[in-house]
């Protein structure tokens, strides 16, 4: 069963990548690839946040710190060392995992709203470190001068199409891996700690350890999102590690839905389309965005995909129930 | 039952999520009457009481006080209409003093009556008088139960809804609370009391109605129920 599900994921991923790869051919212009790259960055980030929020029941207000960390670590490694892109990428992931282990060890012990607070506090601490440590990070001006992209294994990320394909691959691979995690025994245990941590404890689950692992995994995928973003803008900025990014992540999750694996991905597409069109049409984008949020939060009361699936489930339930009554 | 029907509950259906808890529960209470709602743990007593107090939403049914349907109204409106609810786990405000708990409960009755001034409360509940400045959280279980009843009386209810007042208390305290309730009844207070402990209700309730698995299965004068071993064994595990 498990093996067949994994195969389905891999095949689905391959198909998705094939579609992505065809996009520049089907749709002329350079806008679509740019849009997909941004979707990859935010989508990886938001889906990783949903590992915590949706599957782990851990509402993090500070997840953006790992997005920022990924962008800065990768950018700095490329600017200041002679590492190849894959090596720098691997090292960035290691750094993110290490930092997340330390921060997570402190955070995951706290429950509910206090977990949210402490993650926010760490994010603000890291953001103020980035701003203050001008010598390393460039302070508020960010990493300047562009991120060099030496060719590796015949791949040239300075080429827009190759960068596009690489980012699309990162997105697809990241999503497949995360889906495997969610479907695994670990994913099951994680959901158990979400639904009833006490019971999970009785059953011999080390709740803190499970949460910590989830925290680190989520941080790693968020960091990959950050790397993609840094390649897109060819730099890194303190905003990447700011509350706005964490807030966007939350918003995306709520837009798309947290109970379906692809909910955050759908949310990403909606948010970016919304952002791009609204800012184009009006300077009072705050009101427009605010009203849209209210529609989701008060009108639907859940993300779009959650809403749709619930509706389908309801319809099925009534379809089953009605013959009995009739 | 001089004044006719005071509280009338009909066709009460309650769901928690998808699962149904109460099925067409019905009961009625005459003016000045005391009715015991008996049943095993989990039979639906507390849900019925909460539903009457407006704390659990009914999907269907009628809860009429003096002919006025209160179903669907918000809890504070139901309390103002005259239903005074004493919850099973007492739910006193632990950080407030005893007197503050009472003051929070104070309101006039539906006809503007103010029959329970603090003085009378302390007369009827002499145990509370010396504790008035103590934090309610530091009272014993029995004292907390007394406080919970007194607090609800401060609101001048027409019907007193008591949910398992004897639960978890020492026998001596249970006796004391029984005596208190009998004295309340003697003053003409109408009482609906949900209990697992049938003996507690003997000599207190006029009638008893038995609930099992969310359905009313038996209603009779309490003395008759005591004599009916079959019903007792089947529904009350005695």
């Amino acid at each position: 069963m498990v093996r067949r599900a994994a195969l389905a994921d891999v095949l689905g991923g391959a198909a998705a990548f094939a579609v992505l790869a065809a996009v520049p051919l089907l749709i002329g212009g350079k806008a679509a690839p740019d849009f997909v790259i941004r979707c990859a960055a935010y989508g990886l980030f938001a889906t990783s946040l949903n590992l915590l929020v949706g599957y782990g029941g851990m509402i993090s207000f500070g997840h953006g710190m790992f997005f920022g960390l990924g962008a800065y670590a990768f950018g700095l490694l490329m600017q200041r060392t002679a590492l190849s892109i894959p090596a720098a990428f691997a090292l960035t992931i290691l750094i993110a995992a290490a930092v997340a282990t330390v921060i997570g060890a402190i955070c995951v012990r706290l429950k509910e709203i206090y977990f949210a607070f402490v993650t926010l506090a760490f994010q603000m601490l890291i953001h103020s470190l980035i701003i203050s440590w001008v010598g390393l990070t460039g302070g508020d001006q960010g990493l300047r001068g562009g991120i060099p992209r030496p060719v590796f294994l015949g791949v040239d990320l300075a080429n827009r199409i190759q960068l596009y394909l690489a980012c699309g691959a990162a997105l697809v691979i990241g999503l497949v891996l995360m889906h495997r995690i969610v479907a695994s025994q670990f994913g099951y245990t994680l959901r158990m700690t979400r639904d009833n941590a006490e019971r999970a404890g009785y059953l011999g689950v080390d709740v803190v350890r499970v949460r910590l692992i989830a925290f680190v995994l989520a941080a790693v995928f968020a960091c990959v999102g950050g790397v993609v973003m840094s390649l897109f803008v060819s730099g890194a900025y303190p905003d990447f590690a700011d509350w706005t990014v964490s807030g966007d992540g939350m918003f995306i999750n709520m837009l798309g839905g947290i109970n379906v694996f692809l909910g955050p991905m759908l949310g990403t597409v909606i948010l970016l389309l919304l952002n791009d069109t609204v800012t184009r049409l009006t300077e009072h984008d705050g009101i427009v965005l605010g009203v849209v949020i209210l529609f989701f939060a008060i009108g639907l009361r859940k993300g779009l995909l959650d809403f749709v699936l619930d509706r389908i489930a309801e319809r099925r339930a009534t379809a089953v129930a009605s013959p009995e009554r009739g | 039952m001089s004044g006719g029907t005071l509280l009338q509950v009909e066709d009460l259906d309650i769901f928690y999520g998808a699962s149904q808890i109460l099925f067409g529960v019905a009961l009625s209470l005459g003016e000045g009457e005391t009715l015991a709602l008996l049943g095993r743990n989990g039979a639906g007593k507390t849900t019925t009481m909460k539903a009457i107090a407006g704390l659990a939403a009914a999907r269907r049914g009628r809860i009429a006080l003096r002919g006025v349907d209160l179903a669907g109204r918000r809890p504070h409106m139901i309390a103002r209409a005259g239903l005074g609810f004493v919850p099973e786990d007492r739910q006193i405000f632990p950080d407030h003093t005893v007197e503050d708990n009472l003051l929070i409960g104070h309101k006039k009755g539906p006809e503007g009556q103010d029959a329970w001034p603090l003085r009378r409360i302390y007369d009827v509940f002499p145990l509370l008088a010396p504790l008035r400045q103590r934090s309610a959280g530091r009272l014993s279980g029995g004292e907390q139960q007394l406080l919970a009843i007194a607090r609800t009386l401060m609101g001048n209810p027409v019907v007193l809804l008591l949910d398992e007042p004897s639960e978890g208390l020492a026998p001596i305290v249970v006796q004391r609370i029984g005596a208190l309730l009998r004295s309340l009844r003697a003053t003409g207070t109408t009482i609906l009391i949900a209990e697992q402990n049938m003996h507690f209700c003997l000599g207190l309730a006029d009638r008893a109605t038995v609930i099992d698995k969310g359905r009313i299965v038996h209603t009779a004068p309490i003395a008759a129920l005591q004599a009916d071993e079959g019903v007792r064994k089947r529904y009350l595990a005695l």
Partner: protein
Amino acid sequence: MATTSRSAIGRRAALAALGAGATALAAPRIVRAQDKVVRIGMPTILSGRVAQLGNSSRNAVLMEVERINAAGGLAGRRIEMVIRDSKGQPQEAARIARELINTEGCDLLLDGEASSGGFAVNEVARDLGVLCVHTNSETSSLTADPKLRLPNAFRVCRQGVHDSIVGGSYAAGVAKAKGLKRWATCAPDYAYGRDTTAQYVEYLKHFMPDVEIITQAWPKLFQPDYTENITKLLQAKPQALYTCLWAGDLTAFVDQASIYALLSQMELFAVNMADYTTLTAVKHLPPGIHSGNRYIKTFPKTPQNAAWADAYRARYKEYPTTWSWQNSAAMHFFEAAAKRANSVDGKKLAEVLPGLTVEVPFGTDGTITMRGEDHTIINYAIGWGTTIPTEPYVPDMHPGDWKQIVELEAEWKKANHYT
């Protein structure tokens, strides 16, 4: 009016994109067909704390566009501006800049971002190879640092190091006359604040070596309350205080300092005071504040400058800002370059821009020159003076000496290994 035409275009493009069914994904390059048009994309800050300045940039640009179009356009082509709000976020600035070129089909970029957004747009210009003129990023390294400099990017904007040289020399003059030796500084803790302060102090000491900096306060950018910084400065009892706080932060600082009577205890050198937005916003403008010129219609004291300010004011019901003149000047550079190259092709414009001199009201001698070696402007009006509470606010500006500025700037570049 240009404003309406601009927004109409924006809306039309967006609607067309929506009609295509996939908004940004499939936005067609609709305007390409109209060959008589040149589209200039402009990311700038139209919401948030800096929106006032972004707006004033847009205002100035639209005013010039109308004039240029009336005179036949750029090399015979009518200018269409596509102006977008980045909210001051660098990643948005980068995204918008890319989109302006890739989706909106803009031919040229007029980068109206402040410093960090400016660096982000600079990277986009590097990536896409499009001609980009920065108008609002004062950070010197943008064009001074050869690692950042691009053949296709230019800056039409005052520059931090120029300001500091003029400010230092002016301050040293005042300090010598009044015996001000103990100095303090108060600057927002971000790149502009730190760099500008360091350079100012450097040149103050250059012109008056026995000056001593006894304390430095670093409030956060946009900090609402400066009380703890003000009291700290009072404790140190300096004779003079330099600050590069700006706009709302500067007025709040002056208001808060006033109730501590700080200004009666030390001379205040506030480089960003002499800007109409700030001068008119302060309710009780104290006299005798030393300030650099941001934009002031009496400096340079020419009829052209006054006429431009009056025209702007008549049109927008407010005075122009320092961002306004810079953007106005940038449009003049586009105009002159297109004329010389007889083309609007970015590569051809980039070839003729270095060394180009244009006639504008904001030059010391009526002209500003795009310096060839580092793609940044010189000879713009720059000076310092002291305030009075009412118009003209700064009656006497002491102009900076461009020969001196250029010499010291060259030394500064050498010291920073930029040459």
